[in-house]
């Protein structure tokens, strides 16, 4: 059966007047779009292979290239969009589940963009972060409910284990396997330089990165890949991954083709075998089972490391979080439905879960209503895109945020959303050595540090404007937020007033 031809989504526009046929585009395109035709003496392109990753555009020394959206469209139909129709063709061609990468691209509400931040005028001075001290350090973990004193009356200072961060941001879980060695190296080095943490994801921890342990969160996921004593001991904190915002209720599947060499060794599974993470942890079918795993991990790490439980933001997230807060977990991480992924079924990614802003607001309020907010720290992720998003998240009640997509972008990702192909031209979501080397961790880590330094400055500027000189005074400070264009219900869930009120 001949496959139904689908016209390429993108077109390569090459300015013939500018192209010097240096063939950089050809050498750099792992999708083999560009080719030099020696007979014609010009560069030609096979657009069916183009994923619009912009590698060629970015490296073309004469700016001769442009990737544009094809205007070869089907007849316009408000109900049956081009994309919908083409997805149907694809499925009719293949009979398969559609796969996608990175976060939900659908035009669903982004609440961050409907929330505005306050600033001081007259009654209270704004603070200039360049003149006055401005603190962004946070400690994540359970805080004791009561002060204890020893026989001398001195306060007993044995806090439960805390994760100290110089700013309320961490790089969230991306496994070695789904991203490259150099991407991990960049994240680990940047986290260390920044005094924050990165997260191994569920692919284990490469032996080269044990030295970054104090800035590493190791993950224990349903596949338990690469989990062993040293792995747990190396880390600053251990995260139990129950779910992921991009694909709540779904496990993971890293194809055997990517389980090669160090990836296989790090995951502790044979080369070439598929790495399948089951949808649930098969030892956790309920909240009381979670408590057992939390305490197993605490036992294994001698109660020295905070335990994070990461869940996807789903409908009854407040109740789930309340349950986790009482399970012994020190930190709850919630991943919203716009969170990224290396590969997820398209339908799941685009239709399951809820926005992180609403999840955060309701969880924070619920934990306060129950008087247990200080028992856990809250970390939220799922498309935190800027310093403003961080400030809004903290003001809604988060202790810190997880960023991944922004970190990937800093490392060079152009969000072409074809990670699943394993041919990432930017050296991030690939294991092909020739592609992996395209990400020099010197550059990758520097850019990550730059990004976070910039965010830190912006966070301070925003805090200073509000007259706040330490990040903890922003946490849960919802008075600093106002909504625009939100319904009464949305405002009620977010716990903020409308602008003008």
């Amino acid at each position, binding site marked *: 059966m001949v496959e139904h031809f689908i016209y390429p989504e993108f077109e390569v526009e090459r300015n013939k007047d500018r192209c010097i046929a240096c063939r950089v585009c050809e050498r750099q395109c792992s999708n083999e779009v560009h080719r030099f035709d020696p007979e014609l003496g010009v560069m030609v392109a096979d657009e069916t292979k183009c994923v619009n990753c912009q590698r060629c555009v970015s490296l073309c020394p004469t700016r001769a290239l442009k990737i544009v959206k094809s205007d070869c469209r089907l007849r316009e139909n408000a109900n049956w969009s081009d994309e919908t129709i083409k997805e149907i063709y694809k499925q009719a061609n293949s009979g398969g589940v559609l796969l996608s990468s990175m976060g939900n691209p659908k035009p669903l509400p982004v609440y961050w963009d409907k929330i505005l931040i306050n600033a001081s005028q007259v009654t209270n001075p704004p603070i200039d972060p360049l003149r006055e001290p401005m603190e962004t350090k946070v400690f994540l973990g359970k805080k004791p409910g009561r002060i204890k004193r020893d026989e001398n009356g001195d306060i007993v200072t044995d806090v439960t284990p805390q994760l100290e961060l110089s700013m309320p941001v961490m790089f969230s879980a991306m496994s070695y396997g789904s991203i490259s060695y150099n991407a991990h190296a960049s994240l680990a080095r940047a986290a260390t330089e920044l005094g924050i943490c990165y997260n191994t994801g569920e692919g284990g921890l490469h032996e080269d990165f044990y030295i970054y342990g104090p800035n590493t969160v190791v993950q224990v996921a349903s596949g338990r890949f690469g989990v062993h004593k040293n792995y747990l001991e190396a880390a600053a904190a251990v995260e139990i991954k129950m779910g992921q915002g991009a694909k709540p209720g779904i496990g993971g599947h890293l194809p055997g083709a990517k389980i090669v060499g160090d990836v296989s060794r790090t995951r502790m599974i044979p080369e070439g075998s598929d790495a399948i993470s089951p949808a649930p942890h098969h030892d956790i079918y309920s909240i009381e089972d979670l408590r057992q795993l939390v305490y197993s991990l605490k036992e294994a790490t001698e109660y020295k490391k905070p335990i994070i439980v990461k869940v996807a933001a789903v409908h009854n997230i407040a109740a789930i979080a309340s349950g986790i807060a009482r399970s012994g977990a020190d930190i709850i991480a919630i991943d919203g439905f716009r969170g990224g992924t290396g590969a997820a079924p398209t339908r799941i990614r685009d239709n399951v879960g809820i926005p992180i802003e609403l999840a955060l607001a309701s969880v924070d309020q619920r934990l306060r209503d129950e008087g247990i907010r200080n028992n856990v720290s809250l970390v939220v992720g799922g498309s935190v895109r800027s310093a403003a998003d961080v400030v809004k998240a903290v003001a809604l009640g988060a202790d810190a945020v997880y960023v991944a997509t922004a970190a990937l972008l800093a490392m060079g990702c152009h969000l072409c959303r074809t990670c699943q192909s394993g041919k990432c031209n930017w050296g991030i979501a690939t294991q092909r050595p020739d592609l992996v080397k395209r990400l020099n961790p010197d550059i990758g880590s520097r850019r990550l540090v730059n990004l976070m330094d910039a965010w830190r400055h912006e966070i301070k500027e925003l805090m200073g404007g509000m007259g*706040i000189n330490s990040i903890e005074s922003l946490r849960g400070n919802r008075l600093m937020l106002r909504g625009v264009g939100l319904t009464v219900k949305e405002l009620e869930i977010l716990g903020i007033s409308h602008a003008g009120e």
Partner: protein
Amino acid sequence: MKLEGEVRIPSGCAIAAVISREGKGITGDVIYNAMKPMHDRSNGLGGGFAAYGIYPEYKDLFAFHFFFDHRSTRKDCEAFLKERFEVVKGELIPTRKIPQITDEPIIWRYFVRPLGSMLLSEQVDENEFVARTVTKINTEMKGAYVFSSGKNMGCFKAVGFPEDVGVFYKLEEYEGYSWTAHGRYPTNTPGWWGGAHPFSLLDSSVVHNGEISSYDANSRFIEMFGYKCTLQTDTEVITYILDYLIRRQGLTLEEAASVIAAPFWSTINGKPEKEKEKLTYLRTVFSSLLITGPFSIVYGWNGGLMALNDRLKLRSMITAEKDDRVFIASEEAAVRVMEPDAENFYAPAGGEPVIVKVKEGKF
């Protein structure tokens, strides 16, 4: 416009305080006259005083000061009180009719003792019992508002300039060893008697000048522990925070100060190991109780005063001494009115608590 409790009310203000370390009596005119040179720091929308040692004859009883909107409210409330307390005395608080103060509510005071049976059934001590009762009245009984609930102390407040409020309440007729005063400059309230300051709970009272930027972070945290920030004012939340830290967590005043006006991490890291450990611990555990934004407060309790500025010292505050008396005020002029020959003027650094205690047995 919304009243206190319906919206958060920030305000700029004037504060002043005086205390006798020997526990000697000071009449109320001393303090209300001190507010005169700081007239422009208030706007007539609130003034008030807290006085310690003024009810020696009832010093073992809780003195409740009430505003009632109506006689019937007072009746209902009195009935409720009697279910929980032995009401030893109830009376109108004496006032003087002056043109500057109008629209006064019914202002009443009760001297009460919690019923032992109630303490037993609720399994709490008398302070907690009183605190809960006050919270209950203030949140649930419309038209009734307890604005003072400590032993041998009392708050007096009204809509008006503080010097007029002092005259209105005939404060020159009271004698106490410690006084605090507040003149209010709120920016978004029409002025409500209950919203005037000091704010107090049990014998704790707070006068405060400033506008804290951490308000919602503090209030949403403290509300987890049974407090209700009904007024949505800084003073109220600061009072609750100090009550929580000092009475319920048992922190010392200095420790409490290091929570609400915590030293910067860079400062903490420069301290000796033990000190550093303790400060880090307090700052970590009570991170949500750090107060940022400008404030100068005088915290009063039976037996002492504590003056404290925010850690950046964004508000003026000065202290001075003369003989057994210690003076605190937003401006030096106020101190000079109280004692022209005051000495040792000192402007405490941001986050540096100034604690004055009356000699043991003298109050």
